[in-house]
């Protein structure tokens, strides 16, 4: 099962003279859940669209599921489930009609059975006659996932599938993705949520069209090398404002009644934190290990852009 499902090299795409994706490489092994992170407008959607043949790369090459990205996009489309960022099923068709339409397009046998099963799996069976446009955001996501799973794809490309969905629905959604992963389905999923990022096996981080980080999730804290300090006690707001203004502090985050300050330069960070202690003698300070939470807030905030 160590086969590579996505193997693209040097994918490049420009819109209006601006390079949206620049020499992007990615290798995703079979069965992996690969997280795709980056600030808005960083080129995640464009990359995913190139991988599934919806956009033609200017340069670059690669294989998806063993098929050439440039010349065999129809074969790729038959085997890939792509969930768009914006709901892109038909709002004036019912839930069932949408699923049947997709099932027909893929030429599936036992169509009714599959549609029934999909409705059952996603808990939409009772609402199958409802128009898709009348569904709430969370239910639309479930329907979209059901639609892109109905032809049993080997690869799922999910573009911010849980944006604007409540936490319960997001948890259910990720349960479903992990179930598919256990069955050998490979997933490339873009997200802005830290709690989702940590569930991925590996993470690729992209900003301004360039991949800045690509590593197994567990190895990321070490790779980034983030140091942390904890600051507790009143007055928190003043401390926070001071830290945010200081050099050497890349991230300031509130965790309940304490502040975590993180930075890549240990001495500069310590200097900044001690300056706060001096100004606010009542606060307690202590060094901490920067965990996933801090790391991902750091990533999501686009701090890695400084790498450039």
């Amino acid at each position, binding site marked *: 099962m160590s086969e590579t499902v996505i193997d693209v090299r040097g994918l490049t795409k420009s819109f209006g003279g601006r390079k949206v994706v620049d020499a992007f490489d990615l290798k995703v092994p079979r069965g992996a859940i690969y997280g795709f992170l980056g600030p808005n407008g960083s080129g995640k959607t464009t990359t995913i669209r190139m991988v599934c043949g919806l956009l033609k790369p200017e340069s670059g090459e690669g294989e998806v599921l063993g098929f050439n990205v440039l010349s065999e996009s129809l074969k790729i489309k038959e085997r890939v489930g792509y969930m*768009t960022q914006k709901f892109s099923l038909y709002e004036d068709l019912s839930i069932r009609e949408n699923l049947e339409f997709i099932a*027909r*397009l893929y030429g599936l046998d036992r169509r009714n059975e599959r549609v029934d099963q999909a409705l059952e799996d996603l808990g939409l069976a009772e609402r199958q006659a409802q128009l898709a446009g009348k569904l709430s955001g969370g239910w639309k996501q479930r329907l979209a996932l059901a639609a892109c799973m109905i032809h049993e794809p080997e690869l799922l490309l999910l573009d911010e599938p849980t944006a604007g969905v409540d936490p319960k629905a997001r948890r259910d959604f990720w349960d479903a993705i992990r179930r598919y992963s256990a069955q050998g389905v490979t997933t490339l999923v873009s997200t802005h949520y830290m709690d989702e990022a940590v569930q991925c096996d590996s993470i690729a981080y992209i900003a301004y069209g360039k991949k800045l980080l690509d590593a197994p999730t567990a190895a990321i804290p070490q790779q980034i090398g983030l140091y942390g300090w904890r600051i507790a006690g009143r007055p928190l707001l003043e401390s926070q404002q001071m830290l945010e203004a200081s050099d050497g502090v890349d991230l300031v985050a509130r965790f309940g009644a304490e502040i975590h300050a993180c930075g890549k330069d240990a001495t500069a960070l310590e200097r900044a934190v001690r300056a706060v202690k001096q100004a606010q003698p009542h606060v307690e300070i202590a060094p901490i290990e920067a965990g996933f939470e801090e790391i991902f807030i750091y990533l999501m905030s686009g701090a890695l852009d400084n790498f450039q």
Partner: protein
Amino acid sequence: MKAPTLPNLLDLSWARVFAVFLKELVQMRRDRPTFAIMIMMPIMQLVLFGFAINTDPRHLPAVVEMREDGPMTRAFLASLSASTFVDIVAIARTSEEGEAMLRSGEANFLISIPEGFERRLVRGERPQILIAADASDPVAAGGALSAIERVAQQAFAPEFEGSLSYLAQGQPPYEIVVHRRYNPAGVTAFNIVPALLGVILTMTMVMITSIALTRETERGTMENLLATPVRPLEVMIGKTTPYVGVGAIQVAIVLIVATLLFKIPFTGSFLAFLIAVTLFILANLMLGYLISTVARTQMQAMQMTFFIFLPSILLSGFMFPFAAMPVWARAIGEALPITHFLRIVREVVLKEAGLADIASDLWPLALILLVLGTLALMRFRRTLD
């Protein structure tokens, strides 16, 4: 990705065609207002234009300039009044007076009977009755002019008896000379109702399919559609076929209304009509579909539809005589499906034409269909680029 080649474009699975077809059918049914418009529009337009545009106008005002006042002339004028085609609104004393009324529109016709008309008639010199017609409305003029000739024949016939019976032999002993003013071409054989079928079909078919793809792009559903293995030809056939049905309903409505309400006789071959109308519907669907591969928004699609619709009315021979247009305008007209359909439908409905008679307009229609379909297929964007 390679540039689309034709064999590649013709790649097709009927199951997927059916999938798109079924989806379009459901969406069409769910969009009640649009569906209602498609059904109501032919009826509304027929009633509106069918009655408003009167091809057989009566009671058109005429002024008579009389230089002669004999029994035969009076009989002629009396018959003319009785015919109801024209109403004699004034007797002009001078020709200037008559011309002025014609110019101002107070009269549509100026009928001049020259001095010594009856005397020269009896001598067999074939004197002229001069009719100046305001042909700025060619329809009105054409209908009345032919009526006037018939009326003249009937009016003079009783006068040519006894000693004058030699005048009843051969060609009429007088000559009616018609001068069409303001629009010398004038259409005579013109029937609005069969032609309206062409206009209605052009309007609905092109407009509906012009948003076929644009709507998918605007709603974002195109992205999903393109992510599936569906082929361009499958989308095209699946998306346009439901509207062949809509077109058929419109044709049926127009035929029924034309027969019942306007008493249009259907003289020609019905088979020829069916073949022509099917080709015409398909050509219009392809035209609309081609627009939808070019337009980026539904608004653009609507504008392009009207860009097609106006020449379809003005340059097709629907409104103005085709033969009278300059060469370049006729060239544009020949490229429009409706031009050929109008000729076909007028010939078939009114002139007893069969398949062989309309062949000269049938093949251009088929050619237009083929060219439009191919262009649309080549224009179809398989990616979101």
